[in-house]
């Protein structure tokens, strides 16, 4: 792609990204949404986060991998257990990374 094309992508990407982020804050405030839709706002965080995480853990290479050599999945399950028990971000990430590195070292 030409230099001009790249800048078109950057400026266009800036615009459309801001539009998604500003949409309900600036253009269509949530107060004006019907109550049924508003009651869904509290589920946005768990739903989107789960939709990001599940493929990353279950399909690390693009295909479903439920085997014991899927270290992402095993580290993720360990992190989940720690998060449920201790509700602490640092600890969750540290344990998850430690499990991932340990499995990689043992398996390699």
């Amino acid at each position, binding site marked *: 792609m030409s230099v001009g*094309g*790249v800048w*078109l*992508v*950057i400026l*266009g*990407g*800036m615009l*459309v*990204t*801001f539009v*998604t*982020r*500003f*949409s*309900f*804050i*600036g253009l269509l*405030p*949530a*107060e004006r*949404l019907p109550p*049924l839709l*508003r*009651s*869904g*706002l509290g*589920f*946005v*965080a*768990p*739903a*989107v*986060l*789960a*939709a*990001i*995480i*599940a*493929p*990353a853990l279950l*399909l690390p290479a693009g295909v*479903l991998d439920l085997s014991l050599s899927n*270290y*992402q999945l095993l*580290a*993720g399950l360990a992190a*989940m257990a720690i*998060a*449920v028990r201790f*509700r602490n*971000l*640092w600890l*969750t*990430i540290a344990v*998850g*990374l430690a499990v*991932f*590195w340990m499995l*990689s070292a043992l398996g390699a």
Partner: protein
Amino acid sequence: MPRVDEPSTAPQAPPLPDAGSAARQFLVGGRDQLPLLLGVIPFGLIFGALALQAGLTPVSAQAFSVLIFAGSAQFIAVGMLSSAPAGLVVATIFVVNLRHALYSASLSPHISHLPMRWKVPLAWLLTDEAFAVAALRYRQPEVRLAHWYTLGTGLTLWAAWQASTALGILLGARVPEAWGLEVALPLTFIALLILSIRDWPAVAAALCAGGAAVVLHGLPFRLGLISAAILGVAVGVVLQARRGRAASGSDGA
């Protein structure tokens, strides 16, 4: 959660531990973003290095992070540059970032009283990480100065994303791939996911969204992600409404 509300008898409630000055809220917001940087910084490093490999100049590579400021969309866009026309790349960025509209809707009631000079920067900084941390903050009882918290958490992420992109551009091909640090990002999201779940409808919303995202993974332009998220939200709404009816509707959640 125990709450002590004694309106008329107590003279003046003592300040809640999370209240305090705007500056303090700003700093606490920044501090609460720090663990997430473990996932974001490697991601930024890899983006900087990858953008150069894709043939971008250092300035345009950094401009992606400064102006678009959306990690996964940036990766996908850079990957498309050599083969797709600019319009299609921009359309893809839009679709990949549609989930931000859900964050925007979710944050909107909390900041609707603020002037535009607050709404524009807070919208600009509305990433996955900033939203997830801010959403936890808005559950606390005292939220008068929480926009300072949200600003602090968003700016911290923005600064880390710029610095790590710049470092990735500097290091170029010397960014090590073997550290397995790309696993840190899903781990930070796992921690946020668990903290964001408070009740059974939220558990069901997460399970349905996660399952649907796996099934729909093959859809183009990451449409599976936004479809799965909307499905999860819908399941949460339905279960919550049922629950409200079963409890004969007096707890008004």
